[in-house]
């Protein structure tokens, strides 16, 4: 009886192990600024092959410099926070530039993450970020990209929730988990 039980368990395990459906291996390229660079991608996406191409302090010029570099890849982009102050008075043009630069990466699947709010709303920076996010969302979705909105998840009424940050700009592991879960819901 005992032998039968053990063999039955082993058989169930083997059946599950070998009958699993075959899904294609997924490779993800993350591109953007320090918010990408500080992301522990292996921990957050343990089943995927991930590439962290985040460059601290980078902005639109970095994305533009990568034109054509991600042909047929799945790319996740998070950029804009370093440029938003400089383009504060011309967000319409900046959003055009950013969506064009991302389109020029020539990736097969593009996921754009909304720019995170800041802890301190100096010079109404968060209003500018919110407006820029709206513009990027409108333009990117009409260009067939997937927009991942995490702004409201990370903010209270106006600013970045203090439990998600140490320095007011970069988010901690808890914040990254929220962003990760949002992305996993839309990954294909």
């Amino acid at each position, binding site marked *: 009886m005992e*032998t039968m039980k053990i063999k039955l368990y*082993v058989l169930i*395990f*083997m059946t599950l*192990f*070998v009958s699993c459906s075959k*899904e*294609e*291996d997924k490779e993800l390229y993350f591109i953007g600024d320090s918010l990408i660079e500080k992301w522990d991608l292996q921990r957050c996406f343990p*089943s995927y092959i991930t590439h962290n191409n985040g460059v601290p302090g980078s902005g639109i010029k970095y994305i533009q410099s990568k034109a054509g570099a991600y042909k047929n890849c799945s790319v996740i982009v998070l950029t804009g926070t370093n440029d938003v102050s400089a383009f504060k008075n011309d967000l319409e043009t900046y959003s055009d530039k950013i969506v064009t630069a991302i389109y020029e990466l020539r990736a097969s699947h593009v996921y754009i993450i909304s720019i995170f709010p800041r802890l301190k709303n100096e010079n109404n920076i968060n209003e500018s970020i919110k407006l820029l996010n709206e513009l990027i969302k409108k333009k990117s979705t009409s260009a067939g990209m997937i927009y991942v909105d995490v702004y409201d998840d990370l903010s209270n009424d106006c600013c970045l929730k203090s439990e998600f940050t140490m320095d007011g700009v970069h988010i901690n592991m808890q914040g990254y988990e929220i962003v990760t879960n949002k992305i996993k819901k839309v990954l294909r």
Partner: protein
Amino acid sequence: MKNLHCLIILLPLLFVSPQVIKGQIYFGMRDNNYAYCGLTIKNKFNVSIEHSLYSEKMSYQKIRLYVGYQQNLGDFNLKVSPYISSVWNGMYKDYGSMIDCSYNIFDFAVGDITFNPHHDSGFGTDFNYMVGIKCKVYKDLWITSHYSCIPEFRSSEKRVRLGILISVGQLSIEPCLSIATEGKTIVRSFCSFKYNFIK
């Protein structure tokens, strides 16, 4: 075809006799992310199953089977554990072996080196290793220090792992910090434990 290979490898388990249950059963968790249980027979042979605890859907969880052999030669210990693993949705598979050699340098210090030839269906073949030492500080309290490129998740990274190992009866607990030594300086905190159920 790959599924057939898995079946062939796992087939001998069908002939497991209930007598082997008389060995030492253990369970535990490795690096927060992998729960395991296993059986050691006559202090030599070892079979264990490890399952991931990623914050992912079940289809993206990984299951790994180890079949091992260990030998104690005085102060020198050798353990060889081939393994095969797969994500439940079949997205990728890997296989390889952990070849662990440890040596009791003094009563209070153990040096160890692990070789890990590893093949991942997405990354290809890597030859990883871990080298380190653990020193007894007080009774059952040890400090551990390792340099490793054995994957903590899927791809190989060069990291320093610093931790403490506490043994209380049949339970051992090892909290540690894993610090990347190149590229992005990402620090991970892990905790592992192991409990020997039957002695």
